[in-house]
């Protein structure tokens, strides 16, 4: 049975693949402490080329329609299962594939048809594709459903601005990506001057008096920011006392805003930073970080090149994160996603244009890994959406729902407020 027939069989007779529990995630018992479970979401802004992250090199069409950017085993592509291959820059993650805690869901994404970066990111962050009026983000709504830990650090956003995915009423701590020490220093100096006391980095009391107790969004932001700052200061000074590599400063902070998102090149320390926060403060439960620079219309490269140069620090950072988490990794799920995939064919400029379905990455101690999931029909024109890009055969909300319900213990009623209007029924973990 070749891959195409295999897929057909799967589609025609779902009984061949009995669903594994309603959530499709239940490889491990769900009978455990949901409060100890962690979720980390990484968003790659710009639409990463999933077909060159997890490449169907077993399909002859792959090299035909990607003559210059297509990769091959001979030049370094990492084989996954004889059909799929992983970009060589993802080598730091190979051990996770080997120990079955890394999986991919291919041809996955938002069901909305848009090829606009901004709409597609918006929908992936609001969690309600097609409805622009959604003012909150799904991760904020998720935090609202989790049992409160009375901690300003229960949900963390890494980066200077609060992303759309975290917009909403629940308090989110925004923490700068690692290494930006200048701001902290300034704050301490200011604190000293205003309070005339040895610095602890706390906010000057005149502002506490101004912002405290007002029932508005600025006051809430203030309270949450102050509490988070004090906690992070405490964690980081403790970490500094033990001199591990987690306190390494980013040497050169070349800020490139991609909706506020830096490229992974400029913040390679994010993995260590996240690991420190998660391991030093057990109340940290949910985190989000984004990276820009994936919009490779021109000179994308193959095993080497532009995409490779971005994947390298990303994979390195993720490997650092997993290493740094240590035993906490067993209770953690890491999701890497992007607003859409890119065209199956390379364009005339050695790049790819906006497409649809993409590869979603999953890592974690309970991820049923070592497999590429998703319904994938190959690269023939009649299998592609508009003969152009991968159809979105798995809704990203199916994957997220599966994780959130089985790992974080949300009921289907609670899931309905995370993804309103979305009926989670299907099992995303079908191998194509």
């Amino acid at each position, binding site marked *: 049975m070749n891959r195409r027939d295999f897929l057909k069989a799967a589609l025609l007779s779902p009984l061949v693949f009995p669903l594994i529990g309603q959530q499709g995630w239940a490889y491990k018992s769900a009978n455990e402490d949901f409060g100890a479970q962690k979720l980390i979401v990484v968003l790659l802004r710009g639409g990463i080329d999933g077909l060159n992250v997890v490449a169907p090199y077993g399909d002859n069409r792959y090299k035909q329609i990607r003559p210059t950017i297509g990769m091959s085993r001979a030049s370094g592509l990492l084989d996954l299962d004889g059909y799929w291959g992983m970009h060589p820059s993802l080598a730091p993650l190979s051990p996770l594939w080997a120990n079955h805690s890394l999986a991919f869901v291919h041809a996955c994404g938002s069901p909305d048809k848009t090829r606009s970066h901004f709409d597609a990111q918006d929908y992936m962050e609001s969690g309600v594709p097609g409805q622009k009026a959604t003012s909150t983000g799904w991760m904020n709504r998720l935090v609202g459903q989790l049992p409160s830990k009375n901690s300003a650090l229960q949900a963390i956003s890494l980066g200077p601005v609060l992303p759309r995915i975290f917009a909403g009423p629940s308090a989110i701590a925004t923490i700068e990506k690692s290494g930006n020490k200048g701001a902290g220093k300034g704050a301490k100096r200011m604190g000293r001057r205003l309070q005339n006391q040895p610095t602890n980095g706390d906010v000057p009391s005149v502002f506490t008096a101004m912002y405290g107790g007002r029932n508005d969004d600025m006051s809430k932001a203030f309270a949450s920011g102050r509490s988070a700052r004090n906690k992070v200061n405490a964690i980081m000074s403790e970490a500094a006392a033990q001199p591990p590599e987690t306190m390494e400063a980013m040497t050169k902070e070349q800020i490139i805003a991609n909706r506020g998102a830096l490229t992974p090149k400029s913040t390679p320390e994010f993995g260590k930073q996240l690991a420190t926060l998660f391991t030093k403060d057990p109340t940290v439960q949910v985190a989000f970080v984004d990276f820009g620079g994936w919009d490779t*219309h021109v000179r994308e490269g193959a095993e080497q090149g532009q995409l490779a140069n971005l994947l390298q620090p990303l994979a390195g950072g993720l490997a650092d994160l997993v290493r740094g988490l240590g035993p906490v990794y067993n209770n953690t799920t890491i999701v890497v996603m992007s607003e859409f995939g890119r065209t199956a064919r390379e364009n005339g400029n050695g790049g790819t244009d906006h497409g649809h379905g993409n590869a979603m990455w999953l890592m974690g101690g309970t991820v049923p890994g070592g497999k590429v999931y998703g319904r994938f029909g190959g690269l023939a024109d009649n299998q592609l959406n508009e003969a152009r890009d991968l159809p979105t055969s798995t809704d990203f909300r199916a994957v997220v729902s599966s994780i959130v319900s089985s790992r974080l213990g949300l009921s289907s009623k609670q899931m309905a407020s995370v993804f309103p209007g979305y009926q989670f029924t299907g099992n995303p973990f079908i191998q194509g």
Partner: protein
Amino acid sequence: MKAYSLLSVITALSVATGWQFALVDSGARAAETSDRVAVGQDSQTAQIGHVLNRLTYGPRPGDFEKVRSLGVQRFIQAQLNPTSIAESPKVLAQLERSAAVRTVPSSELLQQFQMEKQARKAAKGKTGKGKVADGNLGNTSNISNPNNPNNPNNLNNFNGPRANNNLARRKGGAVIKEYGKRRGQVGTGMTNMRNEVESGVIETKIVRAVESPRQLNEMMADFWFNHFNISIAKGVDRVLIGPYEEQALRPYLMGNFREMLGATMHHPAMMFYLDNAQNTKAGYQAANPKNKKKGLNENYARELLELHTLGVDGGYSQKDVMELARVLTGWGLPTLRRNTGASGYWASFDEQRHDFGDKVILGQTFKGTGANEIEQVLDMLARHNSTAHHLSFKLAQYFVDDNPPPALVDKLATSYKQSGGNIKAVLNTLFASQEFWETKYQNNKFKSPFHYLVSSLRATGASIRQPKQLSAFLKIQGQPLYACLTPDGYKNTKEAWLNPDGLLKRMDFAVRLADSGSAADYQSVLGTVNGGKLSLQTKQAIDKAPPDQRVAALIGSPEFMNY
């Protein structure tokens, strides 16, 4: 030191307009006025506070009284006619200092950029002090006449003959080297060309926003830059970004939208930023096999429809995007014309790479005639109802509310259509609308980091001595100047900018600003914060604070976060 002392010099110049924004003098006088402000919150006071909040980057001490004596309507009209207001000498000096990075022809900057790159490569192997180009500095005093808003070139006639003036003979790098010297950084040389350009354009933007009495003009410059965003972080746009703003946007800020649309389309910086420089008809075979330009690149075509004109819901399809991409094939970067020595400011058109077939966009057929096709398409797009609505929404959001009232958006769209896309006419309608003046929309917009920064400098009268520190503040706030990588530009909504850590960092900044030796006194700064009107809670907190913390407290107050 107060920043204003120089400004009073030009008071006489601005008499003609009746608008004397530049007359700012002593803290004593401002203190006297702000007391009155704090007492009387009559409707006129509220109106003055509102126009100062919305048509400027925040009042300076004493501005309140000036608008009161000038009259709100005359103030608005003066702001809508920026050339009627004398420019600040500080701005003029900065424009002269930075002329090189804003006015050099694109072709020369591109050439220089390449030479520099090659020189760096070559120097890697050797000890590396290879001279890249001769330092033919010449007399740069005629580079620009910054009084002329249409400077640098009056070359906006991009369909006509290309530039050929004194400037064209000068090598871009040499001019930029000269810029380094003028900034007192002798010896930076060409290898730092990119850094020079970057700090030049960033400094200029901050100085203009803080110091220019043509405040509405500066706010519109920011608005349109974000609308037609390009990023300093992308390749050659690092050196083209200054000229882009100067040549493609600033001449049209309150002019005709179609002209600005055309100028951005014809600017090499845009061609490069959205990859149209690569956009080539299908099946093209270049004579040079190394040439990688093969096939359509739809990036610019898509954003031209989605962001610049119709809007994402403007009613176009993927097919329309592809057809427009075909219209745009062949448009790319200019090259220095070796034979004549003439240099190019604007994008060039390569017939060889153009698709001469007919195209159908939004149901309308465009004959494949070459360079003129895009002009017809831009005409259609600029006239389109969706464009009128899209631009009107964005302007109403910028000037009125994050969720602008639909009736106002409709009003503006009508004004846009009736005036043939005249931006000043739309703004006139906006400032005259009942919605603009509604109480619920006053002091309800949350400042972007840039707005917050500039308004705090204006409120305290701080002089700009360390622009690098200011630009660093914007980086940690998530709004590095000219570095928004995505073509949708920076937003101006609360949702985009209010977050816990960012808010706290504004307070950190407020403390540092008050600590930086500026002699701003509490009473004069108070007059600039929401017309002197503080909530009881804010007032009580400040009253309890030691006197030397009060200015910082004001700049970090909830009232000052809004405008």
